[in-house]
């Protein structure tokens, strides 16, 4: 009987393993989509008239405030469907997912092969992993065929940046390409002590300022490390000013943007000097004792009069925002320039899933978002007259009956996710020339990272990567927040990294990078 029990169980398991294969006629995490996009593209191009294209329903999933429960969602969708039927003989259905669930849902949608054709898929939702494993489609041929509008609108860096192994899998939203780093300080104290915010070119130069504040302003932490949208200052130290900016690539790997060499990050002059400086400042009381551990919102601390500074990314308009949140005028010490790194360009991407029913039509729809402001703004702002009113200067204001932009019936807040943000409407709460300023920012302040568009295949050194990754994630916070003696910590981390095979990783990276350079 026991033997029979076991074999019964085995049979049950076997059935269960096979069953999903029978479900829906498709195997899991897979939808054997149509043939390779290139073939698809050709056959569509051969079709003489748009009407010859069969009607198709496409679903577009992306995060949005209030998910799909905007009051006028159905109205707006009807308008969109009408538009896409006329232009593309397709019905593009928006599937907005509440912000609170999008991060979990979109990856599951992609992994399970759910009936979704277009998805918002930035690198922080797994873009690279899905590109590698074929969950999202390569787009180069499709874009060449159907996405000329996209290609001509997007700046070069937004097209090159998200490439994986030389192939593009995600279409970036046309917005600010990258962001700078900066140190925001309360203007009152800056003026009081006569500091010149434009004079800071190296981190060390801040020290006399910190000392002044510490000595003269009791109860105010000169440099507060808290929570809430913080970033790297990104200026060199005095010792490292000639070294060239080094990117922290994780796992202890550093990439020198000037020499284009991969180096051990924690052995660079910058790392050695900067972390020791931070630890020194912590000992002197310039940095709060619980840096790295506290749950205190940085801006709130400033507002409460207990802190002087915060580190943050800096986009146009950031000063005003921080001034409001900190309850007083803030001023800015500019930090690292707006490096256009791969991750900066992958912050907002749209991809086609493996389950996509009609890649060509999908690209055509996306193309329209970049070239036709009508559909772009229909998706972002809803219907004129119902959800907004157009003003004379082109900006939009609240419709009658709405008190805030939260109850105008349709405000998903998605202008940063897809399409051409530069053609989207500006509300009367912002400046009319907001997009001009942004374009200017994009054109003048971007500094491309040397490895923009390069991707690393870590298979050869996977074990070493894992080991170094683990080591790095054990000390990074300690060093950044001065939680322990920097000299010792650096010595320890460097030794452990070398023992774990960091050099092998660096060599492999350099090799792949040089090969990529040669081909470029």
């Amino acid at each position: 009987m026991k033997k029979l029990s076991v074999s019964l169980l085995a049979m049950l398991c076997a059935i269960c393993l096979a069953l999903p294969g029978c479900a829906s006629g498709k195997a899991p995490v897979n939808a054997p989509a149509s043939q390779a996009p290139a073939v698809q593209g050709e056959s569509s191009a051969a079709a003489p008239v748009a009407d010859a294209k069969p009607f198709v329903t496409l679903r577009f999933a992306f995060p949005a405030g209030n998910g799909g429960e905007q009051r006028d969602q159905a109205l707006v969708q009807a308008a969109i469907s009408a538009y896409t039927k006329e232009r593309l003989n397709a019905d593009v259905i928006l599937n907005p997912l509440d912000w609170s669930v999008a991060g979990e849902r979109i990856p599951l949608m992609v992994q399970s092969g759910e009936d979704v054709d277009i998805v918002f898929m930035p690198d922080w939702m797994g873009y690279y992993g899905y590109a590698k494993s074929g969950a999202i489609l390569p787009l180069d041929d499709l874009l060449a065929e159907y996405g000329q509008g996209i290609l001509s609108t997007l700046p070069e860096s937004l097209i090159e940046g998200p490439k994986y192994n030389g192939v593009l899998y995600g279409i970036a939203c046309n917005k600010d390409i990258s962001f700078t780093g900066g140190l925001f300080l309360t203007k009152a104290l800056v003026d009081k002590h006569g500091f010149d915010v434009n004079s800071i070119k190296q981190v060390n130069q801040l020290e006399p300022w910190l000392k002044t504040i510490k000595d003269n302003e009791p109860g105010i932490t000169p440099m507060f490390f808290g929570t809430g949208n913080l970033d790297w200052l990104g200026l060199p130290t005095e010792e490292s000013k000639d070294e060239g900016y080094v990117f922290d690539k994780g796992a202890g790997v550093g990439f020198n943007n000037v020499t284009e060499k991969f180096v051990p990050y924690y052995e660079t002059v910058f790392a050695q000097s900067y972390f020791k400086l931070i630890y020194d400042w912590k000992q002197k009381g310039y940095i709060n004792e619980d840096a790295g551990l506290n749950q205190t919102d940085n801006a709130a601390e400033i507002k409460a009069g207990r802190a002087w500074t915060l580190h943050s990314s800096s986009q146009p308009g950031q000063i005003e925002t921080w001034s409001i949140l900190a309850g007083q005028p803030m001023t800015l010490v500019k930090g690292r320039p707006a490096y256009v790194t791969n991750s900066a360009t992958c912050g907002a991407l749209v991809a086609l899933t493996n389950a996509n029913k009609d890649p060509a039509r999908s690209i055509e729809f996306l193309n329209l978002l970049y070239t036709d402001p009508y559909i772009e703004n229909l998706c972002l702002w809803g219907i004129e007259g119902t959800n907004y009113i157009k003003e004379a200067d082109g900006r939009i204001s609240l419709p009658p009956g709405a008190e805030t932009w939260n109850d105008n019936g349709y405000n998903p807040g998605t202008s940063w996710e897809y399409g051409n943000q530069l053609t989207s409407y500006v509300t009367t709460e912002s400046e009319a020339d907001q997009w001009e300023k942004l374009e200017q920012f994009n054109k003048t302040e971007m500094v491309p990272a040397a490895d923009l568009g390069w991707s690393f295949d870590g298979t050869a050194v996977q074990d070493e990567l894992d080991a170094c990754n683990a080591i790095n994630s054990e000390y990074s916070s300690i060093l950044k927040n001065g939680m322990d003696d920097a000299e010792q910590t650096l010595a320890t981390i460097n030794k452990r990294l070398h023992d774990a095979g960091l050099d092998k990783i660096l060599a492999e990276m350099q090799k792949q990078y040089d090969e990529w350079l040669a081909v470029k």
Partner: protein
Amino acid sequence: MCPLKALQRLLKNIKSNKSMLLMMLPVFTFVVINSYLPMFGVIMAFKNIDYRSGILRSPWVGLRNFRYLFSNDLAFRITRNTVGFSLAFIAIGMVLAVSIAILLNEIRAKSAKKIYQTIIILPNFLSIVVVSYVVYAFLDPVNGLVNKSILEKLGIKGISWYSKPEYWIAIAPIVNFWMSAGISSIIYLAGIAGIDPELYEAAIVDGASKRRQIWSITLPMLKPIIIISLIMSLGGLIRSNFGLFYQVTLNSQLLYSVTDTIDTYVYRALTVAGYGTDNVARAAAAGLYQSVVGAALVALANFAIRKIEPESALF
């Protein structure tokens, strides 16, 4: 045994136990849907997932996705921490839960009993993030209640709680028991409620003291449920309470030598720079590793129990 005969016997058994088998149908269905159908996911641990071919046809890569769990010098530490804490939690937690149930049962005043019972289960309902805030309110090195209101008053210098791993050997279990002891005692309360009072009456007639009653009646009657709980807990020996070791510790790196467990390690490994690693497969591998070890432990424990107390064995 001849397969035909076995099949006949099977059918006969099914027929004669029809109604009981029918009773099992609902849960059977639910379990098949919730556990067995998705079970195919475990093969992801052995594959290099390619969505174009689907899970079933993706290439096999053997144990490659498991390597990151063992390939570095942290493997020992995370295992030691996980197992150490699990053992402590299981053993001490059990003692605490049973003691609470027994002691509660001795309280005569009904309203006091109800009040205590309700209050001690409260911590279980706080989400782990809230618990981390509460712990922080106490252990904040600068403004925390412990440093400021207790130690300072006693003239002792404040301790940097989140920087000293040795303290967490005690802090983590304390937080764990605080959260779970109350609710764990409920099941033992139910167990005691089911004990025949005549047993106690007989013991008292024999002149048994309270302590003797507990030792000879209550505990032995609770033994089966204690055994089940123990065996089950062993199944989770190399799992840990992620929230406790990641959020309550504020993920302070200075504490890792004590608080880094397999689960927090896996989380770190999977969320940092990918370089194209297959995180879905690796997560599946970690889960499978923990499942296999847990299953082995349960089987071992069950085997041992079968020799001692065959009635209580799971199978």
